[in-house]
């Protein structure tokens, strides 16, 4: 054991900025990270024991206790619950004889909850030792547990055919489905990998590339919508011995899965986008930060990078351009939604806790290893290839005036055709509902832009998807009339933020948790009108948080209070002004039981 840890450390040249990779390999090799492993890593990297512990304890998929020979992580997102997670969970517990959070006595199986794994269109889904199992049913769970008990390797536990497209690639072999429902310029098959690098870049200066991107009016697809050309220009002008291009493939916002589909079907387009970005800003190193849940794509993606190197699409003098050197490595995360925030992403890639940095300075000035860094979303980088191929002007004709181009939407929930849709900006929510086979009459709400976005009702279904109205990183969750909105959606999303806060802001660490307690009180029919006012007031405190996570963590409650107030009012005691929050019967329960008396409470 000590020797494997030793070898892993050696593989990464005892480089402390590669601590994430070291921990990922130790976790996957041994099923946990022991005290001895931590000491060994600390000694070899010449950092303190607590340094290793602080990184390790931050991430959901690192464990200081054995997680079982078969570690089962069942998705706990809202849509997973809507699609029958509870029965799957119960069956797992019954078949294994343990509760969630435990490992069987013989160390064979561990059961754990996990935040959205990016499979909302094929829920309930779980990861077993990193392999995806989708569309789970109680029957399927029984088969899986039987296979495990027979000692079958995970790869042999698939019973259905592999998924569509590249999911069948020999280097992937997964049952995951792409569910591409609508294609546009990005997802179109009409693409010759490397064409921009061979034919366009050699004719253009970096400044011309930036100019073309600016002309397209392209704005970032990761959520914040920052103009891409401007970001590149800032980075190009920033001083630094080295510059870096990051692809943000952390995709952790529950309900979003379009980047997974791009990584599977158009990875060459993505890598080409990174090369273009590198040329434009003058970077020589790129890092694609991919969420841990997509690790099943590792061999596939690394093989493509190798192929690109062999074809001179990466490496030295790329595309024959003298002096243009650039290469890409893949950095996996280990389960932390906040790492999608660009500065947290950088911290994580440096081997640290995924805590967002204080800004300014921004990554374009001081990013990875304090050098100027561009962080772009997967979809942004893909779009850029088409911009350079066909011109900024061509691109700006798609979409609306302030939102040019197309957007990949991840649509899930109560509809006939969940999946990925590439549409132009500017459609209304109603248009979308029709497209995905959801009957408006049966829909009570749509969550636009994930938990940090907004929950809207039918009176707002005519609003349009664009930066000026309903901006979105790309997810729509459709919620039918038969759902319990406050419990199934609002509570679940609030719990998600509580779970995923990095904790370093006093506000974000505590306020969502306090709001969650209050929401539970209301759902428990103990609420009074003052509680609704409190929630609104407390929500404002979150605006003082450092990053977007904390700033939006109140949104599920705040936007439902705004748009679905009647649901709250139906749960509270409207006639009661005051509530001491003290439950007398609960307080005297133990003593009454001991004394054998029945309390008189009025």
């Amino acid at each position, binding site marked *: 054991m000590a020797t494997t840890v030793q070898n892993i450390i050696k593989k990464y040249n005892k480089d402390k900025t590669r601590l994430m990779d070291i921990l990922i390999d130790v976790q996957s090799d041994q099923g946990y990270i022991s005290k001895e492993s931590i000491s060994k890593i600390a000694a070899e990297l010449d950092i303190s024991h607590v340094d290793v512990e602080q990184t390790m304890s931050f991430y959901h998929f690192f464990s200081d206790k054995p997680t079982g020979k078969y570690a089962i992580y069942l998705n706990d997102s809202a849509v997973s619950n809507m699609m029958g997670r509870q029965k799957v969970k119960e069956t797992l517990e019954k078949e294994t004889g343990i509760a969630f959070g435990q490992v069987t006595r013989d160390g064979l199986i561990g059961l754990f909850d996990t935040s959205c794994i990016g499979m909302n269109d094929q829920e309930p889904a779980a990861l077993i030792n990193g392999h995806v199992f989708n569309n789970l049913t109680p029957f399927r769970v029984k088969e899986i547990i039987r296979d495990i008990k027979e000692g079958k390797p995970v790869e042999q536990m698939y019973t259905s055919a592999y998924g569509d497209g590249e999911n069948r690639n020999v280097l992937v072999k997964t049952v995951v489905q792409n569910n591409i429902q609508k294609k546009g310029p990005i997802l179109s098959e009409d693409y010759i990998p490397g064409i921009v690098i061979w034919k366009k870049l050699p004719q253009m200066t970096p400044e011309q590339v930036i100019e073309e991107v600016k002309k397209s009016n392209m704005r970032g697809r990761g959520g914040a919508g920052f103009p891409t050309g401007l970001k590149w220009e800032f980075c190009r002008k920033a001083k630094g011995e080295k510059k870096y291009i990051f692809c943000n493939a952390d995709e952790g916002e529950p309900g979003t899965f379009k980047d997974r589909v791009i990584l599977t079907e158009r990875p060459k387009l993505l890598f080409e986008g990174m090369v273009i970005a590198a040329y434009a800003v003058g970077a020589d190193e790129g890092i694609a930060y991919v969420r841990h849940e997509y690790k099943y794509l590792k061999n596939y993606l690394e093989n493509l990078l190798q192929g690109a190197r062999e074809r001179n699409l990466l490496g030295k003098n790329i595309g024959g351009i003298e002096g243009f050197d650039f290469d890409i490595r893949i950095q996996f995360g280990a389960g932390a939604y906040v790492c999608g925030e660009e500065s947290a992403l950088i911290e994580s890639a440096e081997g640290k806790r995924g805590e967002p940095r204080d800004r300014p300075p921004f990554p374009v000035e001081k990013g990875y290893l304090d050098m100027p860094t561009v962080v772009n979303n997967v979809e942004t980088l893909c779009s850029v290839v088409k911009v350079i191929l066909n011109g900024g002007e061509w691109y700006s004709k798609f979409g609306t005036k302030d939102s040019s181009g197309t957007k990949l939407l991840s649509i899930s929930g109560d509809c006939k055709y969940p999946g990925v849709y590439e549409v132009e900006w500017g459609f209304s929510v109603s248009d979308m509902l029709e497209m995905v086979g959801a009957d408006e009459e049966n829909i009570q709400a749509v969550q636009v832009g994930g938990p940090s976005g907004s929950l809207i009702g039918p009176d707002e279904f005519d609003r349009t998807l664009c930066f000026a109205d309903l901006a979105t990183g790309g997810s729509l969750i459709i919620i039918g009339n038969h759902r319990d909105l406050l419990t199934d959606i609002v509570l679940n999303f609030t719990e998600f933020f509580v779970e995923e806060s990095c904790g*370093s802001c006093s506000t974000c660490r*505590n306020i969502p948790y306090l709001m969650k307690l209050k929401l539970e009180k209301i759902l428990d029919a103990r609420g009074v009108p003052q509680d609704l006012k409190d929630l609104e007031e407390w929500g404002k405190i979150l605006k003082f948080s450092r990053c977007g996570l904390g700033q939006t963590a109140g949104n599920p409650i705040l936007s439902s209070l705004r748009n679905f107030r009647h649901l709250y009012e139906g749960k509270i005691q409207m006639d009661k002004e005051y509530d001491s929050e003290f439950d007398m019967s609960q307080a005297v329960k133990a003593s009454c039981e001991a004394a054998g008396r029945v309390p008189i409470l009025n």
Partner: protein
Amino acid sequence: MSTLVNFKIDGVDCLAEAGIYLVEAAAENGIYIPTLCNIQGVKPRGACRICTVMVNGRPMTACTTPVTMGMEIQNDTPEINDIRKAIIEVLFVEGNHFCPSCEKSGCCELQALAYRFRVMVPRFPFLFPRREVDASNPKIIKDHNRCILCKRCIRAIKTEDGKNIFAYKKRGIELEIIIDPELGGKITDELAQKSVDICPVGALLPREKAYQVPIGRRKYDIEPIGIEDEKK
């Protein structure tokens, strides 16, 4: 050579050296911006969020934001002060602060801010979490009940070769401070004392030493927090 910049805090014209942090720039102009996690001379980390001001209409932490020409800053407004008060309250309810039995009482910055912001009863329910006291270190007692996770100890206390002795563990509401078993065990007297002094609350206390200054004659018993800056 340093350049001076003009900026405004609550409509008052101010002048400071470009690039210094807003808290310092304000103090130089006799204006107090409350801080809690900040310590002069150590790289800031906007952890407590109390120093938040509105810069050109957007919330920014004054301890991490450098001053630039023409900034319009709002600091002492009812809305901002109410959120600051809420932050103080939330720090009380998330831990267990029984000030009368705390060795730091009177020197505690959290307590002093609570007085300054006139905190009577917090607007949040007390969480009464179960937290442990860690007395395994030979020189420092760490009481997680009182820790406000300000990161001062992590940022300011390092070994001679720059290694961390203190660190965060876990995340979110489970976040806590840990002390390195080995490096913490070998901590010098001087560094141990520095950690105790630097902790704004009573979460890091020295062993076998207490109440050397009697209650009533302690720092904030004599002068409330913030007065120093305002006297400039």
